[in-house]
């Protein structure tokens, strides 16, 4: 034990003597550990964000898009040729018992104006089921009514961001704003949901009755809709709800057994899972890069330790002649390599935490430094010291005292 601390002290001393060399040597390990720490912090933050997104959207939400799943890409633009109709959505809530609500939705990007202020946002046309599906309440005022939906009333409910941009500190309730070219009355302001896991502001929206959207915003009559958002009565009923939707829509669209569905049902869990998979893939990539960096760092440590052993051949000879056993020499150089690598690891940890915090402060990303990853990264750095320090240390330990003493 005493020998151990002697060796640590000795190693630190030789490190301080060769500051520049030590710094260059540990650079690889430093970068490796820093990237492990930072990437895991960013990855964990993203995971947490996705999970909170999951919670904010609701675990029981299903989306139905028109078009076969194989076509991929963006779907559901308002007014696009669509296999889904308002009646499909109504039928779903009526005839699929595992669904609690089913909202037909149209949406479009538009300019909203109030007085001299204007703001670019997204406007959604839907029914009251929209609020049920999303389990979303107003924080101020109320929702539009079924009667408003029937009569295409010029009313709207706005998100917190829109309220702030158009009305500032003033109350929005009862005020008139223009959505596109339609003037409408603000009935209520939705509770703030904050930013979503995909970086979008969930409060940046205007919701109008579906009929109002059709006749006064998009000016496209008909029954077609962009997509359906439905909710299962219980998260456990998700797969049954998905089956029910598929069966009913195939029936309504008169598709026979082998025909491909002209719509796609996705539950939010799947959407989030695919995002999570992407995140995991990126994390893995970063981990690979970090591992390569650590490997290069390890080779750097080995290289410098070999140089150090050669430089200090005479010292090794002196130590052997006064009674050091080969295992003492082995321990000395091994500890030196581990100390070197660990210093790199600790510096990398500091850099990684610092980088994570800077990313967290300057971007909208959530970062979460993982204590276990941090400890693991430093431990790995130490382990690299052991692995890559062993060969040089063994070379030192195997020296013959007479030859070593004669070395100039």
């Amino acid at each position: 034990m005493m020998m151990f601390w002697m060796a640590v002290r000795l190693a630190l001393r030789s490190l301080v003597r060769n500051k520049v060399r030590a710094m260059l040597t540990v650079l690889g390990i430093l970068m490796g550990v820093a990237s492990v720490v930072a990437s895991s912090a960013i990855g964990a933050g993203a995971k947490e964000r996705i999970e909170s997104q999951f919670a904010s959207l609701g675990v029981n939400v299903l989306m139905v898009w028109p078009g076969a799943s194989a076509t991929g890409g963006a779907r559901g633009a308002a007014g696009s040729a669509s296999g889904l109709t308002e009646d499909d959505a109504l039928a779903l809530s009526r005839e699929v018992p595992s669904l609690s609500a089913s909202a037909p939705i149209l949406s479009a990007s538009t300019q909203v104006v109030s007085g001299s202020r204007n703001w670019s946002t997204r406007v959604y046309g839907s029914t009251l089921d929209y609020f049920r599906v999303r389990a979303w309440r107003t924080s101020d005022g109320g929702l539009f009514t079924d009667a408003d939906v029937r009569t295409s009333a010029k009313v709207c409910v706005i998100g917190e961001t829109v309220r702030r941009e158009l009305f500032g500190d003033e109350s929005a309730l009862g005020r008139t704003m223009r959505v596109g070219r339609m003037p409408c009355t603000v009935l209520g302001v939705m509770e703030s949901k904050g930013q979503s896991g995909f970086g979008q502001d969930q409060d940046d929206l205007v919701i109008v009755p579906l009929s109002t959207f059709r006749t006064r915003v998009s000016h496209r009559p008909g029954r077609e809709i962009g997509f359906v958002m439905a909710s299962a009565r219980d998260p456990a009923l998700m797969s049954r709800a998905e089956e029910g939707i598929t069966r009913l829509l195939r029936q309504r669209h008169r598709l026979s057994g082998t025909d491909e569905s002209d719509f796609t049902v996705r539950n939010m869990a799947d959407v989030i899972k695919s995002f999570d998979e992407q995140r995991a893939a990126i994390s893995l990539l970063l981990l690979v890069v970090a591992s390569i960096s650590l490997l290069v760092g390890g080779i750097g440590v080995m290289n410098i330790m070999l140089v150090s052993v050669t430089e200090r051949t005479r010292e090794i000879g002196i130590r052997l002649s006064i009674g050091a056993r080969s295992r003492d020499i082995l321990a000395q150089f091994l500890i030196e390599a581990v100390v070197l690598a660990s210093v790199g690891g600790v510096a990398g940890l500091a850099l990684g935490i610092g980088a994570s915090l800077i990313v967290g402060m300057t971007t909208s990303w959530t970062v979460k430094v993982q204590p276990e990853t941090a400890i693991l990264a430093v431990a790995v750095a130490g382990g690299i010291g052991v692995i890559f320090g062993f060969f040089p240390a063994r070379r030192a330990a195997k020296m013959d005292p007479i030859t070593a003493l004669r070395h100039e």
Partner: protein
Amino acid sequence: MSEAGEPRPVIEIEKLEKIYSQGEIVHRALRGVSLTINSGEFVGIIGPSGSGKSTLMNAIGCLDTPTRGSYRLAGHDVSGLDADARALVRNRFLGFVFQGFNLLARTSALENVELPLVYRGISQRERHLRAARALALVGLIDRLHNTPAQLSGGQQQRVAIARALVTDPQVLLADEPTGNLDSKTTEDILSLMQLLNRERGLTIVMVTHDPEVARCASRLITVRDGLIERDERVANPRQAVRPVQTEGHAP
């Protein structure tokens, strides 16, 4: 430190042979050397280069294993030991002084002298104490924290002697201890060794090629062609001139 008292054999070597073979070339560095050295002796080993005196010294110092023959050190058979066991023997029984001082650079005199005790697992406090005592013995009590670069050649060799003495060895092995020193410092180191031999009964084996230096020993062994050519008592060892204590205080 061993007392002068009744002389007893410290080094007993019998028919020691050392053969180096490198492929076809076989070099018999020692060809059957027998030698007994008693406690309290100051033995000088001389001989031309290539005579085998260094090989003999390495064998006595347990830095090397003989090819044949037996070697008993302080009563223990040490001829067949492995590297780690020989390291232990060097640490317990032997003290080394080299021509090139062989101190650790950028390391204080005190720490240099402590080093053999580190490998004995002695606590830091006791190490400090014993190292300081050894340095006091060689007259360097006021140079404890100087590094070799801050010491003169003579002072460095004194530190090396202190390092050799700190473990209370059975034998002090000095390999050309004055080879790197000027004549005045040579006298200084030799008188220190004579003092340690006479007053503390320290057994010393010294290899040198300088007859003037060798004449300070009380027994002179001449090695030639891997054999002991002459082994004689020196009736009247030359007394090294103890210089005035000025060099000891050089920077």
